[in-house]
């Protein structure tokens, strides 16, 4: 390889002496791509340029500006939430069982159906949905569950096994609020708490979480 062939791709000559030139002027910023990974890579390179820029030409990353183009209707808002949730799911689709993913999409379409929506229903918070995806891939529950939306707009998960019930509210930033009722013989146990996702199984340990999460005859959440 000779450098002269690569020069063809650089329409502007890059000078090693020009003090106005950024240190990493030869960095090729990716152009095409719509995925989150594409954005993450572009952000990394822009950050490199910014940190090494002594010319003041690269602006610091500013706070995001919300651009409102027009007032959205409820139908559009619910559509946007469903779309964002599905896009978020696609980021980890390679780790998800196809049937599970399609079932999730059907559930989302149902619980976010404008026809079923009350005016004062809270909208599903996407950070809550993100916690749900990470929960699903970490815990890998394969028993059929119910999905709902709490009064705070967080995704609700519910399992009912016989008389026993476990409900978990997905809060943002991988925090879970759980409550359960378990019947052991004639004894009734109930408990509730709020834990980080990483601690969930340890905290639910005394109540045998696999009792709710594992259905040995069912398909997997993840591949």
């Amino acid at each position, binding site marked *: 390889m000779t450098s002269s062939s690569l020069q063809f791709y650089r329409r502007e000559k890059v000078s090693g002496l020009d003090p106005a030139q950024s240190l990493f002027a030869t960095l090729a910023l990716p152009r095409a791509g719509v995925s989150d990974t594409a954005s993450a890579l572009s952000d990394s390179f822009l950050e490199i340029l910014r940190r090494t820029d002594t010319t003041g030409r690269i602006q610091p990353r500013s706070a995001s500006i919300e651009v409102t183009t027009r007032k959205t209707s409820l139908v559009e808002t619910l559509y946007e939430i469903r779309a964002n949730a599905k896009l978020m799911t696609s980021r980890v689709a390679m780790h998800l069982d196809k049937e599970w993913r399609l079932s999730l999409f059907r559930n989302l379409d*149902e*619980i976010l*159906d404008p*026809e*079923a*929506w*009350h005016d*004062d*229903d809270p909208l599903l918070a996407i950070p809550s949905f993100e916690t749900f995806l990470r929960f699903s891939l970490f815990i890998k529950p394969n028993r*059929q*569950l*119910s999905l*709902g*939306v*709490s*009064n*705070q707009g967080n995704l*609700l998960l*519910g399992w*009912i096994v016989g*008389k026993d*019930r476990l*409900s978990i*509210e997905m809060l943002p930033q991988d925090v879970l*609020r759980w*409550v*359960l*009722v378990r019947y052991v013989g004639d004894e009734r146990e*109930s*408990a*509730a708490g709020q834990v980080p996702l990483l601690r969930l199984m340890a905290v639910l340990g005394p109540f045998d979480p696999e009792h709710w999460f594992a259905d040995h005859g069912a398909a997997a959440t993840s591949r």
Partner: protein
Amino acid sequence: MAPQPLPDEHHFVRHVRGALVQRVNGKVVGCFPDAFKLRDASETRAAETYISACWLEWHQHDCDLGIQSVVQELSNGRELKARDAFAVVQVKKMKEIGLSRGQRIRVLHEPTEKSPSYTAVRAMNRDDQELLQLIAAEAISETVDLESFVKTTLKHP
């Protein structure tokens, strides 16, 4: 007229919006605990201090006919959606659960002009998640899916 407590052997019917109905494979299996939760203040309303319901036996002692009347009464004041459901709750069980959690829950008939069977369930501790889960697990004798109810029961009076 002062609010009257519902008889212990009676039931109240709680309207549950679709997002709080638990379904598996499309079939209603119960309610999330949040269905009985006191809602916090929002832009349009103050924080709830009691939950609203309807007295089933005020209408009819037959469950289906009673729910039919409750649906009629509720639909006068609000829009009901196909995925909504109605939780039929035993008053006695509700109070027992409350006592087991240190709460003297009161289930009171507080009729209004538009809602003659209106019932307020008061003195629930708003932060007690276990109370709500126990209500969902033990106090509900039946969860009626509105869409199916309309199709089956209302078509065959």
